[in-house]
Structure formats: C-alpha cells, structure tokens
C-alpha cells in the first residue's frame, strides 16, 4: 500500500478510524487459528459509507481487504495473508429493528451474537443459531462463516435464518439482496451465495434475520454409555422415532474428564461416551418426549440417565458443553478444533475412526460435537514447543478429513475453510464444482482483492 492510498482513506473517513502504528497492526495479525500475518493498515469502519470509501481506494489500487468481526474463527479466515487492509466492523453494532409482525430482526454486522439473542428474547422471540462463541462472535462473522451450534439439529444454522443482506462489493458498489419475506423465488438466490463466503465475495453492512417464537418449555438429560458406539447409535435411534431434540450433543471420555476438571457440570467421568439431550416445545410435549428419549437411551444400553429437575441443573449441564473448548485450552497450550461432518447414520464409524487415529499417533483427540447432525469436533491438543508432538499435527488433521470424506461427509460442518483447510478443498470438490465457484468469485471480485488466498 502506498502512503497516498492511506492518505486518501484518511481524507475520506477521518484519521481516528485508521490505525497505522506497528503495535496496532500486530494486533490485527491473528484470529483463533494458529496463523499470523500483519496487515498494512487497519480501518475501523463506522458506517456503510466508510466501507464504500475504503473499497473504492482498494479497488483502484488492487489492495487486499479482509473484513473482520471478533476474529474468533478457527481457520485463519481473518488473517490478512497478503497484507493490505483489515476492515474491522465492530463499531457497526446497532440493532436496527425487531419486527414483531414479520418475525424478523435487522441489524448491523458488528452486533455480538448473544446481545442479539438477548434483545429478541426480551420480546418473546427466538434466534436459534448458537455458535459456542456467541458471547464474543459477531452476526456478520456468523453469516460469513455460516456458523451453527448445538441447536442446529432441530433449528438449522445461519443460512436457515438469513433473509436479506446489504453488501458492499469489491468496487465499492452496494448490493441489496433478499428482504423481509421468507419466500422469494425471483432469480438466483444471491443472499444464500453470500452466506458462508468468508469475506471473499463482499462485506456485509446490514443483515436481516428470521426469528421464531420462543419455545415455551425445555428439558435436559445427560446419559452415560460404556462404549461410544452405543452412544452414537442412540442418536439415530432417537431421530428414527420422529423426535428431533433441540440439542443433541456427544462427548467422549477425555472431553468429559477435561470439562469436569474445568467446571463441574455433573457429567459421569467414568463413561466412555456421554450424550446431552434437550427437547423443547409445549410443556406437555416436552414431558412426554423426555420420557420417550430416556427409554430409547436405555434400549441402547445407556448405563446412567439423569434428567435435570431444575433450570439451574439444566443450565449447569450446558455450561459444561459450552466450556468444552476452554477446558481443552486449559489442558494444552494449543488446541486446534477440527470440524468434520458425516451423514448422521455414519457417525458411529466416524467416531471409531477418530479413535483409531488417536491410537495410531499416540495422542488424545478429545472429541465432542453436534452428534444430532453428524458434526463432530475432534480436538488436536498439543504443545508447540514439543517438536515431536507438533510434527504429528498436520498428519492427524489430514487423516481425520480423509476419513470424513470416505464416509460421504464434508471437511467442514461450520468452522469454514480459511487457510486451515484450503489444501483439502480439491479432495471434496470436483474441478467442475471448483470452476463454478471460481467463476462466482470472479464476478463478485474480478481483481481478487477480498480476503485473497483463502477458501478456494
């Protein structure tokens, strides 16, 4: 970047929104992955107009631009690999409108996920996607990563909720797609192409999301199994009985033990696998469902079933799950959360494969995840100062994804590709698929200035 470009940006949006000191640039070099690279300039955008101005200059000078929310992504998606500008949108954090009649919320991209959830829940409404970093992550980052969480099994993930977007494109033009309607079959669905685009197709400046009424009641149970196979087979059994729990999470023994030593969540530490299940709906419905679910668990050889009797008990159970990543980071200096997804009925095989890989490399791969939708997170925990351990990491990672692909799955359920899995993309997608994706990228961003070097 030349100093005249920086000058142009400062003139357009003001000096206080631009960071240039080396200490400042250093702080925008990382995210929650293991990669780092410093930008040449950081812009703290306060409005769509600011972003338009930045993109006009960047477009003219062919300068790379990486949009950034809270930088909690796990795949290097906000690391400015080619330098250029990091475009921070955290100051665009207004909830613009909660529309009770249309059941929508419109907000700026920098709103923190949990703040949005709390705001709509105050109105008796519900925004289900619950990435476990929701206290830190932004809505813009969630859209760009197509994030999801435990509630995905019943309620789906971000893409099921994004109705409309305002997006600034690479040349500074402003694109509006979708709106407040839940149905729209006019033309190609550009909104959905933008969801999950990891900042490579445009920069969201306004997001309209679908809401649903808040379920009246919910109940939670924890059950323990003597082997992981029984635990994962229970998942398909429950769904086969036409019950879709609102959350259905599987934890292996190592994760359970690490979580229990981090925060007491009432999990049995001697079981090989633990399922956490929540059902929601009307009070009578949930009472019936929780009994049926308990019976199904029993049929699959569950050794111990505990139904939470109070909200506090249920909360404690879910706090444990939410602390999963934290518990592992308290255990080893570096934790890489892998993210493989397979068709639900192949889950028992996937879990067995992970176990095999762990044994082969002689490392623990604490695994937990959204078993209800076949999405598991084996975690590679290691000490980067231990050369032997570190050397194994890339191999373990690749084996996990080879296993997922061989079972008809995908290399990412929700954490995205970024830098971390770029080399695996051609294994999953044919040249034909990739060609179409590259074509789409070229239409949106012909000079390849938006988040270059990532994803495809």
């Amino acid at each position, binding site marked *: 970047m030349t100093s005249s470009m920086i000058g142009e940006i400062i003139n357009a949006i003001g000096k206080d929104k631009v*960071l240039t*000191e*080396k*200490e*400042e640039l*250093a*702080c*925008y*070099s*990382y*995210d*929650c992955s*293991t*990669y*780092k690279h410093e930008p040449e300039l950081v812009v*703290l955008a306060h409005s769509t107009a600011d972003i338009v101005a930045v993109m006009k200059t960047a477009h003219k000078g062919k300068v790379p631009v990486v949009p950034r929310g*809270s*930088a*909690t992504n796990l795949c290097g998606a906000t690391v400015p690999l080619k330098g250029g500008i990091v475009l*921070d949108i*955290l*100051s665009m*954090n207004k909830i613009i409108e909660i529309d009770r009649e249309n059941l929508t919320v419109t907000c700026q991209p*920098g709103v*923190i996920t949990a703040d949005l959830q709390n705001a709509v829940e105050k109105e008796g409404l519900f925004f289900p996607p619950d990435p476990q*970093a929701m*206290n*830190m992550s932004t809505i813009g980052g969630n859209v760009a990563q197509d994030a999801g969480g435990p509630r995905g099994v019943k309620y789906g993930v971000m893409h099921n909720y994004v109705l409309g977007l305002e997006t600034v494109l690479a040349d500074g033009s402003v694109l509006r797609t979708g709106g407040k309607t839940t149905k729209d079959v006019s033309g190609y669905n550009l909104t959905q192409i933008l969801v999950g685009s990891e900042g490579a197709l445009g920069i969201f400046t306004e997001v309209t999301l679908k809401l649903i009424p808040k379920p009246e009641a919910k109940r939670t149970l924890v059950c323990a199994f003597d082997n992981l196979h029984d635990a994962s087979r229970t998942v398909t059994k429950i769904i086969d009985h036409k019950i879709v729990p609102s959350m259905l999470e599987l934890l292996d023994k190592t994760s359970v033990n690490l979580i229990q030593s*981090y925060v007491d969540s009432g999990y049995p530490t001697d079981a090989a696998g633990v399922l956490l299940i929540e059902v929601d709906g009307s009070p009578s419905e949930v009472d019936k469902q929780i009994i049926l679910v308990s019976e199904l668990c029993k049929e699959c050889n569950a050794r111990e079933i505990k139904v939470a009797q109070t909200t506090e008990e249920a909360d404690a159970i879910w706090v444990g799950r939410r*602390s999963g*990543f*934290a*518990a592992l*980071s*308290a255990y080893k*200096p*570096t*934790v890489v959360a892998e993210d493989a997804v397979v068709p639900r009925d192949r889950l028992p095989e996937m879990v067995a494969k992970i176990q095999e890989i762990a044994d082969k490399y002689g490392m623990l791969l604490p695994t937990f995840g959204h078993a209800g939708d076949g999405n598991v997170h084996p975690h590679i925990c290691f*000490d*980067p*100062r231990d050369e032997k351990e*570190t*050397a194994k*990491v*890339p*191999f373990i*990672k*690749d084996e996990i994804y*080879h296993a997922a692909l061989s079972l008809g799955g995908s290399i990412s359920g929700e954490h995205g590709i970024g*830098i*971390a899995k770029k*080399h*695996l993309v*051609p*294994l999953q997608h044919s040249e034909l698929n990739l060609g179409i994706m590259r074509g789409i990228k070229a239409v949106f961003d012909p000079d390849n200035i938006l988040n270059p070097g990532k994803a495809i």
Partner: protein
Amino acid sequence: MTAVEKMEKLANVKSGVTPELEKLYHDTDNCVRCGRCTAVCPTYKATRKEMMSARGRVHLARKYLEGSLGVSKTFKLYNDLCLGCGACLEVCPPKIKTDELVGLIKQDIFGKQGHSLDEMMMLKSCSYPQSFRWIVKMIDLNKQLGLVHLLPPELKAKANMFPPAPDKTLRDLVKGVELTRGGGRTKVGYYPGCLTQSLYPDVGMAVVEVLINHGYDVVIPPETVCCGLPHKEGGEHSEHRRLAGKNIEFFASQGVDYIVTNCGTCTHALKEYGHIFTHDPAMADKAGEFAAKTRDIMDFLTEVAGLKAGPRSLGGIKVTYHDSCHLSRRLGVVKQPRKLLAALPGLTFEEMPKANWCCGAAGSYSFKHPATARQILEQKMANVAATGAQVVTAGCPSCLMQLDYGKREFGVDCLVKHPVQLLADTFYN
C-alpha cells in the same frame, strides 16, 4: 495424502528478561486467542480496539519480550491503558494473568526510561500526605475562582473529576473524638487512606461511628502515610517499602487486634506488605502479622463483628452496589457488602448489570487517560441508571469519586455513598 501445512515455530524470550516476566511469558504460550476476554474487558468494550483487549495485550507483551517490539510511545500507551482490573483472568481458560504481565512490563519500562514528569509529580505527592492535600486544595481553589474555564479542555475535565473539597480533613475532624467509648472489647486500628482523609472524611467518620456502635475501641494513628501502591506499580520499590515500614510501625506501637480500611485498594496494598520484605526477615515477620490483621471494613463487620444495624429506617430507598476491582477480585469481598446492605432497615437492594465491571477510576487512570476512562464510565453509569436506584454504593473512595463524577457528567440522578455511611445512618436519630 495432500501436502500438509507446516506449523509455525514459536519464538523465545530475549536475554535480560526478569525471571518473573519470563514465567509469565511462558504462560502466554497458552493463549489460544479464543477472545473470551473480549467479552469482559472494559477497555475493549469501550473502544472495540484489539490492542485494548487482553488478547491484544498478550500479543504485544510477547513481541516485546521476544525483542521484536521495542519501547515506543504507542507501546507504552497501550500498556498504560490496561486498567489492571483482572476481569480477563476470570474468564481466561488457561488463566493468563494479563494484569500482572502488563504491570511488570510497565515496571520494566520505568526501569529503562524512568518516569515522565507527570508520573514523578504524582508519586512524590503521594509520598507525603501534606502535598496530596495541597493539590486537592489547589484544584478546589481553581474551581472556586472559576479559573478552570481558562484551562485547556483536557485539564478542565480533570479538574471536574474532583468532588468539592470538604472544609475539614478527617484528621481535623477526629481530633476531638473520644475513641474509646466502644467499651474496650477489642482494639481496632483504622487506616483511612489518602482519599478518605482529604476528600471523604464523612466516610471515615461513618467507619468510626459504626465500629464504636459495634462495641470496639478505635485507634487512628495520626501519622499514617500512603499505602504505597502507586509506588509499587511505578516500580519505586524502595519508596514502597519505606512507606509500608512506616505504616507497620505506627500500628505496631498502638497494639491493635485488627486493622480496617474503607478502601479496597488500600486493604489490598496493606495485605501485600507480607510479601515485600523478602530480604529483611525481621521486618517480614512484622509485615506478615500486620497483613494478617488487615481487613476491609465490610468484611470485618459481617464476618468478624457480627453485623448489627441501628434501629432507624432508611425510608424505603433503593440502593445498588458497584464492585471495586481490588475489593472483589483481589480480596474476594463480594458477598459481604450485599449482606451488609440487605441487613439495613428500609432499604431495597437492586443488583446492577455487570456490577463488577471497572468504573474507570483505577488509581490515577482516570486522570491520565480521561477520554478512555470516560467511555468506560459511561457504560457503568448506564448500568447504574438501569436499576433506578436512588443511591449507588461502592467500597473504595476512588470509585466513589469516579461515580460521583459520572453522575454529574451523564446526568444520573442518584447519591453516591460508601455502604458504611448507610449503615451509620441507621444509628443516628
């Protein structure tokens, strides 16, 4: 198999780093950059800048200790802008002590570059009670003469942060008070601290009143000096020890059973005395004894004295409480003030959202960084206002001063008091 990626090799500390810093550096190997700290760090919430979060500060500290960043104005500034509030530590999975790390780096810089003129003046004035009092008086005089308006905007804001100086200091007031009418059960030493002495004598009087009402003899050694925390943080360790030594001697000569303060920061500082005389075993013993006797007044009242409120009703006022950082995180005094307030007749307690978020006072922070402190205070005052309380209370005079400034600055209609003042009110007719 596809080409696997290479993992980046970690750097190491440069030579000449102190063992304490080296240990903390190695702890930061464990920062996974999860961003949990960003959800609670007040400076980050107020500014939304990465350098203003623990995650950012850890990254900068690593680069400094590895030798790839030197001491620049910007580097100093971002370290200085950490409140040291410790909120990040509570949520950090690998328990990285960012507050300590930043504190030691600041001392490292002082060691290399010395203090700025401002910092020197501040530390010198803290060393001597008379000069502290003189500064308070000068600011007040300026305000009264209307000269503040002539000051540049930044200085004007600083002057406005001070509440009006009371006519008499605590020292003036307690001269005539008979301090033994408690009945001689146990002798409690009271350490008032600089701000209470000069700006909040009413709080000091309330402490004395309440202790006497609980049947204690109260002793206030007339010559106590600053607790020394500003000097410790400024890396002036010998001055820190000199001040500590004086305070220890003053109380030792009085033969007290307990030492109480009404300031979270002072209590924390006095309790630290136990660790600072590592090369002087005789003094270390005395300091340890002194530290063990020291308690916060609210902690003392609820946990030792068997709290009893007076008969007078406070008339149905709604009260909220702000947790001072030192008091809540360093000393774990969280339940005690709530227990105290709940015991008062005619008082409804209303918890404010995020009660343990720093108010931005943080020692001299609000004077050194008025703009950032103001942003932090704005969040705090919004949370105070959300309760609709008529009185906001806090257990540290530095917070009282900041909250008092906040209520004036952001137009929040409430009184600002120390909880013991309300307790004392129940004894008066």
